[in-house]
């Protein structure tokens, strides 16, 4: 008899926990975004994040603050330029950036780093992105079945650089943090290609695999840079070549030639690093023997075979690859 009553206690306890889990469900609706296809450099654009709350609470209430974030290229300087607010049937509200000093409890990182770790950079191939997370100034209390839709407006200057990029978006509930296993309280998505046009520099394509890349993305002529030719991206005239060479010109800010290496020799030969990729590491100032006081502003280059007759340029065209030296 005693044993039976002990079992009953456990059964009641288990049932209670189950009921609590089932009834305290307050999820967010899936996230969709309105993002224009293009913008002009330095234009201030508003991105719309559409979602909603679906509170399923059998007893008590659910009080939280709204979280929203976007992922944009670092060059947008979104920490300074981004503003957010939201509209909803429960009232419209202001949002503020979460300070770096505040730690997201699950990851132990600040909220912006935690979001980057959790959501990544989506379809982008170049990691030069920042996630920026905002939080509503006010808290909001929900009762059962108080379903609402809300729209977050994220407004930001798109910077001065030409680019093709996929942007990231997130909405969440402040009391839930960024738990990896949670799918109800954090909704995120990445946009289709968004292009910034009309600037002076080269197009930075974050999305499409590139025949030619330069690492680090942000460099000056005194950095050590790596130029890589990825022959696996598309078919080119260099498909069957195992020896790839760099044909390169260094220009100053006025477009004047500071140096060039147009011969196929040991100095200009790329190294096969596997996976149909070839790379050359160089110190631009030393490579072009640039004298003190002069600065290389940009490189224009092609990849060639050993004879110099087979040439691949930007996007597999006859146009050169271009790289502009700059920092953030």
């Amino acid at each position: 008899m005693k044993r039976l009553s002990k079992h009953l206690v456990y059964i009641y306890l288990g049932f209670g926990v189950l009921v609590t889990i089932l009834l305290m469900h307050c999820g967010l609706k899936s996230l969709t975004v309105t993002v224009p296809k293009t913008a002009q450099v330095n234009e201030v654009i508003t991105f719309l994040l559409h979602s909603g709350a679906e509170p399923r609470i059998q007893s008590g209430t659910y009080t939280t603050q709204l979280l929203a974030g976007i992922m944009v290229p670092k060059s947008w300087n979104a920490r300074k330029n981004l503003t957010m607010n939201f509209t909803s049937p429960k009232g419209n509200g202001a949002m503020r950036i979460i300070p770096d000093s505040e730690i997201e409890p699950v990851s132990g990182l600040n909220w912006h780093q935690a979001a980057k770790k959790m959501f990544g950079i989506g379809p982008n191939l170049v990691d030069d992105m920042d996630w920026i997370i905002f939080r509503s100034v006010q808290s909001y209390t929900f009762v059962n079945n108080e379903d609402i839709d809300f729209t977050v407006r994220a407004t930001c200057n798109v910077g001065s650089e030409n680019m093709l990029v996929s942007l990231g978006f997130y909405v969440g509930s402040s009391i839930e943090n960024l738990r990896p296993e949670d799918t109800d309280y954090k909704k995120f998505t990445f946009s289709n290609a968004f292009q910034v046009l009309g600037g002076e520099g080269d197009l930075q394509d974050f999305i499409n695999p590139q025949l030619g890349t330069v690492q680090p993305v942000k460099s000056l002529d005194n950095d050590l840079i790596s130029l890589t030719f990825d022959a696996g991206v598309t078919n080119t005239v260099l498909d069957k070549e195992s020896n790839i060479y760099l044909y390169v010109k260094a220009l100053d800010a006025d477009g004047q030639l500071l140096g060039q290496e147009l011969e196929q020799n040991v100095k200009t030969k790329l190294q096969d690093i596997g996976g149909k990729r070839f790379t050359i590491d160089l110190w631009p100032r030393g490579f072009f023997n640039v004298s003190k006081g002069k600065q290389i502003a940009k490189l224009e280059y092609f990849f060639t075979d050993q004879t110099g007759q087979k040439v691949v340029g930007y996007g597999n065209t006859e146009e050169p690859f271009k790289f502009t030296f700059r920092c953030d």
Partner: protein
Amino acid sequence: MKSRKLTKAIIVLGICLASLQSCKDEALALINEEPIKDIAGTWRVIQITRNGEDLSKRMRFEDFQIEFKNDGSYLVSDALPFIVDGQGAYQLNDPNYPFSLILKPSDEKDALPVKFQFPIVDGERQLSLNLSLGCSSNTYQYTFERVGAAK
């Protein structure tokens, strides 16, 4: 009987005090033994990492050397990028516990501090310098080994 116990207690106490004293001596001796870090000599680069990526396997930089002379001057060969070139004066921020190497080029006004480590690897000192060459977002670690005896 009581006096024997007391004697024993005094002896034990004496041993304890003596051992404490010896610990103190040892600790003091250890502190005193920390040598002045002498980086005089010619050093060559054996590894360079850029933002954590090891470039050593792909790049050749055996020609790059830096010489620290006993008179406090340095001389940099010009085969690789560095935060200074040519010659100038050097000093460690602390002769016993240095964490930065201060380089003052002879043709410039300002001195440049570089984050400095001086580990012993396989019984030999290595010189490890952390610096930025171009954009501050790019960090490099240069590891050197000594090629010549101190002059």
